[in-house]
């Protein structure tokens, strides 16, 4: 292997390592809460995070 080819390989490896490090979120914990029931069915009628509303958009131009 020539010296320039070696330099190129090292350079490519360094860039790959750098990009990977930048993109990695630091989270390696496995996702928990696996369920056979799809989420769409499970949450009908019940939000996972209950919210209270300070304001809701109107759905009509009319004032009832």
């Amino acid at each position, binding site marked *: 292997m020539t010296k320039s080819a070696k330099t190129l390989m090292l350079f490519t490896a360094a860039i790959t390592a750098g990009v990977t490090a930048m993109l990695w979120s630091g989270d390696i914990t496995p996702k928990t809460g696996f369920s056979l029931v799809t989420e*769409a069915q499970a*949450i*009908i*009628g*019940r*939000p996972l995070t*209950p*919210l*209270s*509303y*300070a*304001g*809701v*958009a*109107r*759905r*009509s*131009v*009319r*004032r*009832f």
Partner: protein
Amino acid sequence: MLWSRRRTLLGLVFAISSATMAIATIPQVKAADGDDASQILKAMSDYLAAQKTISAAFDSALEVMTPQGEKIQFNSSGTLLLQRPNEIRLTRTGGYADVELLFDGKTATLYGKNLNSYVQLDGIGSVDQLIDKLHDRGMPIPGADLLLGNVYDTLSANVIESKHIGRGVINGVECEHLAFRNQDIDWQLWVQVGTKPIPCKYVITSKAVGMAPQYALVIRDWKTDVPVDQTAFAFKPAEGAKKVEPDALANLDELPPSAPAKGQ
């Protein structure tokens, strides 16, 4: 060095002249006058009123504000089948309710599929009355304003200012973009360009509410004069479906019930 600078300069001059020529050859669209918003709205209203049957599908997005100032959007999809004057079938599926509304001109049935229970309302004479009654009971019909008998009168009743913004494209369909201002809301409407002025998108901005939450409705798959099976508007309860009191309607909204605010 001098040669290189000359070359750069020449290149720059060439690029600028090419760009100028390209801009000059773009066809200049005549700006809309901007004062014909009411005419387009009227044309849409007249067209809708003249259609005996309408079928369509829609996607809706309803925004709420939490006491902490977070804006959350609730999304639903549904279908509509309207036969004038007095029959309607509407479905709406969201994260928290799966609802079917049927009205055969005499009895209105609201069926919560996920609850397998239904509410029936008698003494309703028209789709307009049905819209009002359901709104009073906290379950507004999606896009109700566009289903009324006289859309133009209803929509333009409290308008302070109207503008024809120009054009937009909704689901690949070219539309006239209209914007209207009322006292406490602003609203926008996109109406299909051409001989079939149907509504493609409708947005209501509640500017009097903090952080101005919006309601947006995108309508697609419009069909008119479709063959309608008369049994389409009759309610056939599923096995085990139970009839409940109208108060239970609150659980069928596209918005899940509000939880008590923290600290209360």
